């Protein structure tokens, strides 16, 4: 079964690059450019993994993460943070808020793919 990936990032260039890479890898990719539309997409689309940027206008990634975790439909979806912020405190904060993985930009595409595979392989209902 094809894994569904939701990318929430306000940078369209990043969206495009990730879409190109992940689609080529056989993932089904859905895009969202801000927090509210990302949350909506998460509920409707029920992705296997969410790639989430932290710095976004209006609603930042921490808030999105908090809402994802507090809603029952999305609380168990693995969330991989992909951010340009490499500060340790941010990393720690993301962990405490319930992020599954924490990757920084610029990234190695292999790392992202490995992270997605690792996050979904735990899910026994989704055989590879």
């Amino acid at each position, binding site marked *: 079964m094809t894994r569904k990936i939701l990318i929430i990032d306000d940078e369209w260039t990043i969206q495009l690059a990730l879409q190109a890479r992940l689609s080529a890898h056989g993932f089904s990719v859905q895009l969202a450019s801000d927090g509210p539309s990302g949350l909506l997409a998460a509920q409707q689309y029920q992705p296997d993994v969410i790639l989430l940027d932290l710095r976004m206008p209006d609603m930042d990634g921490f808030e999105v993460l908090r809402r994802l975790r507090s809603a029952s439909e999305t609380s168990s979806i693995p969330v991989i943070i992909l951010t340009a912020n490499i500060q*340790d405190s941010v990393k*720690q904060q993301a962990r405490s808020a319930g992020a599954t993985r924490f990757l920084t930009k610029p990234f190695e*595409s292999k790392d992202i793919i490995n992270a997605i595979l690792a996050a979904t392989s735990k899910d026994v209902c989704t055989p590879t």
Partner: protein
Amino acid sequence: MGNPGSDLPPQIQCDSILTHESFCADSWMFIRHSYRNVRLMRAPVHPKEAERLQAVRGTGLVGGRPDALQETVIELASDICGTPIAAVSLVDADRLWFTAIRGLDFRETSRDAAFCAHTILDDVPLIVVDATQDPRFSDSSLVTGAPAIRFYVGVPIKTVDHLPVGTLCVMDTTPREISPQKIENLKTLAALVATQLQSSGPKALLQIGEVSRFLTSIVDSSGDAIISKDLNGIIRSWNSGAERIYGYSAEEMVGKSISMLIPEELCQENERLMAQITRGEPCNNFETVRIAKDGRRLNVSVTLSPLQDSLGRIIGFWKVVRDITEQVETKAQLRDTAAHAERLAEIARRTSNAVIITDAQGRITWANEGFTKITGYTLEEALGNVPGRLLRSDKTDPKAAETMRAAVRGGVGCRVEIINRGKHGREYVLDIEMHPLHDAAGTLTGFMAIESDITEKAVAKAELHQAAVRSERLAEIARRTTDAVIITDAQGRITWTNEGFTRITGYTLEEALGKVPGHLLQFEKTDPAAVEILRSAVSKGVGCRVEILNRGKDGREYVLDLELQPLHDATGILTGFMAIESDITEQTRTRLELENSRLELMDFAENASVGLQWIDRDGIIVWANKAELELLGYTPEEFIGQPISRFHADSTVICDVLARLARRERLIGYEARLLAKDGSKKIVSIYSSVYEQGGELKHTRCFTIDITARKEAEDRLKESRKVVERQNTELSVMAERAHRVVDDVSHEFRTPLAVIKEFASIIADGLAGPVSDKQAQYLRIVSGAVVDLNHMVEDLLDSSKLRAGILRVDRRAHRVDRIFETGRAALASKASTRSIVIKERIEEGLPALFADEEKVRRVISNLTTNAIKFSPEGGTIVLSAATAARIGEIIISVTDHGPGLSSSDIERLFGRFQQASTARSVAAKGFGLGLSIAQELSWLNLGKLSVISEKGKGATFSFTLPTDDCVSVLEHYFDSIVASNRPEDQLSLLRVVAKAPTALDETQEFLASATYPTDLIMPALGDEDDGMQQEYAGQAWWILGRTRSVESWIARLCEARRSQSLENTIRLAPLSVDVCGTWRLPENALEARVDVIEAVTQEKLRDAKNPNH
């Protein structure tokens, strides 16, 4: 841990002293200062420690019972030295007991931390001017933590066997000096305490509180037997008086029953008396009979008083026994003499009786010559008169007159004493014996009165009464049988002496008879003036009283209070002298000692270098010493007698001072400003206490210390500190701002870099359509350049953080292969652009390392990036990890086959590193910022970066890391401390325990973010004191860090925790922080290394022994 005081009450056994726990609620942190000082600063034990400990126990004071006399001594000591703290301590095996303490609120402490443990090792006083500067004490918990002792002077208190049981000591929280005179005073006080401990003796029977009374009673009645016995009548003490009276020695009697001394028939009486006292009824004095060793029955006067322990329970009896055998005999003799005298007087007077005969109506019909002699009336004049009318005076007792009248009326006899007046107005006392006269037929014919003039007799009676009073005095003398009584003839030659004389002088009556006492007893030390007084009294035949120093037969010197009275016979001729001599040697010595110590103390107070004044209850200065007057520049006349408020610059302050003193508060270091005569204001620190007598304020004693100079210096310092603080704040704001700019810049860089890199990689991977090999290769170069650029951004960021000292370090146990694995893809992709192969070699069985994984990877990455840069196209780079030559160390190396470095290149490269501050700002020859960052990061990982290279033969850059073993981590940490040239600092060891279940990472990451890169965080074993150990074992950490003070560090941790708990929605576990030790750096770095390693490994060892853990 062995507990030495198992016989002590439980509250003393617990280890609560110097432990205080506080809970910082908003930051969820428990802070505990248990000062389990791991550094062993224990003083060596005393060479006779076992005997010494026995002596300590023998004082009966172990456990720190308060003692009134010692309280007085320490009050004096602290007043003398002007210190807020003074104490009498006993140094026990593991603990220090304060039997009296002032200025601190605990009564015991650990011997390890104690100054006094050192004091007892030497005969001379221990003086510590500033404990922080003294290597023996600078690490003591009493110095590093509360109460922050700086100054200490201790004088050992020794038993008669020269065993030091404890100390008298004074302490202060600021460094200070002490004059030799004060030391001498402290020594005197210590000797006083030693005497007290001594007299309290090894027997618990003699309670300390009794001591002064006991001593006084010995002095007051040295001839009395003083015996103590317990409730079973077993004798516990037996003094020399008892020995003298009963003839038994102390050895014979102590431990024996008192009943040995009591005549059989009196046993019940004795039991009744003891029962009476036990019921609380007093039994002041009674006379009874006792049996001496030689079988003599002794008349004794006994005083019984109960002996109580500190709780007031009766545990025995005091008995003061006085031999009154002589007294009883003298009394009997006196009684006989008086009766005899009376009889004689009667006989002597009878001859001159008046005889009157009257008719039945009482009219005089005849009178004898005696009548005329007595009354002055001739027979002719008296005839026909009624005697009563003729002779009555206004002093005549109407009752006596009535008796006589009634007798006359009734025709019966009577006998009365009556005062009459004679013809010449002389009043006289008559003893009238009146008999009725009857004729043969039995008819009353008249009366006969025999009248004795008893005027003289009455006078004699009065005299007799006086004689009785005198005999009382004699009895008094007799009672004081310990006194010597000498009777001499008019020439001063001894005619009689009593036993007391023999007892005091050693001469028997036979030896003394006929001698002049002066010749016999005086010697070269006898005061000539006293002798002269005696001689002059003898020659004039008058009395005198002198104190005189004599020498007895056995050479003993003693002081006598000698009362000399002339003796006269009835005719007033001097017949001799009587001398009553009391041995007042003891009193004199005590008095002299008291006088000397009084003089010493007065001199000390007057000449003390500290200002001292007494103020009465109305605020008037009643006394001031020299220093006080000199301080302010007044003469005694200008100062004493004035209200103290006149000399205070601030009226509110002196009002407050007087109000506090009125409330009996003690002032310690109270600051005030005084007005000097020259108009200047002196800032002084006042130490003051109230002297009370019978609950009434007598005066207050104030010590005044001039701190004007210190205060001014402090003010200047404060001012300049403020300036520095302001500058610091400004600087840190600027640093923070700059730091944020760098952060923002790097953040802004990253997104476009990511886009460039990813698209280059997507195209190169052919995901956007077919590309030629050439195009793919170029795109990978673009990709690699982006990674380089990104590293530069990271280096810039780290560089700025390193400079600000806030780069986070999170060291944990990691496996080398995992670290290699994580970085492999990025490096390989970079190397592949130049067809370079990276080979990895990891030694078999390599242990885990202890480091910040991210930093290790950055160092590997930076070194490999350089290696790729310098390697020929298609070359090989070897990345290896192996155990280093040094135990507990791993070495990671990156070897290239590039052009290599010459030794001068290396020197230039690493020479720069040594100037750490400039290293980061200057990119070393072609190596970029990366190498200097690598060097810094290696250092943060407690290792070292080095290079081995030869020109033309490539280069091997290596860095070391500690293995995951607490000893090697600590060794590396301390090496890094030694290597850094930071100025003076404090190193502290904390133990942090999470008090609730939490994600292991949460607390570890919090600690890493809240501490500095120079701090070390190591996992500790779970908190064994905590009942929750089963569930949360392992949730404990050691933290070792350098700060200016441990308090500021803990405050910082609390602050970080608070801000974290505000940011976080999830609940954080409360943390308990235990301060386990502090050391001064750099001077105590070596001790710190030993102590910390010991503390951490001991925990491990303990854990290994405890299988439950």
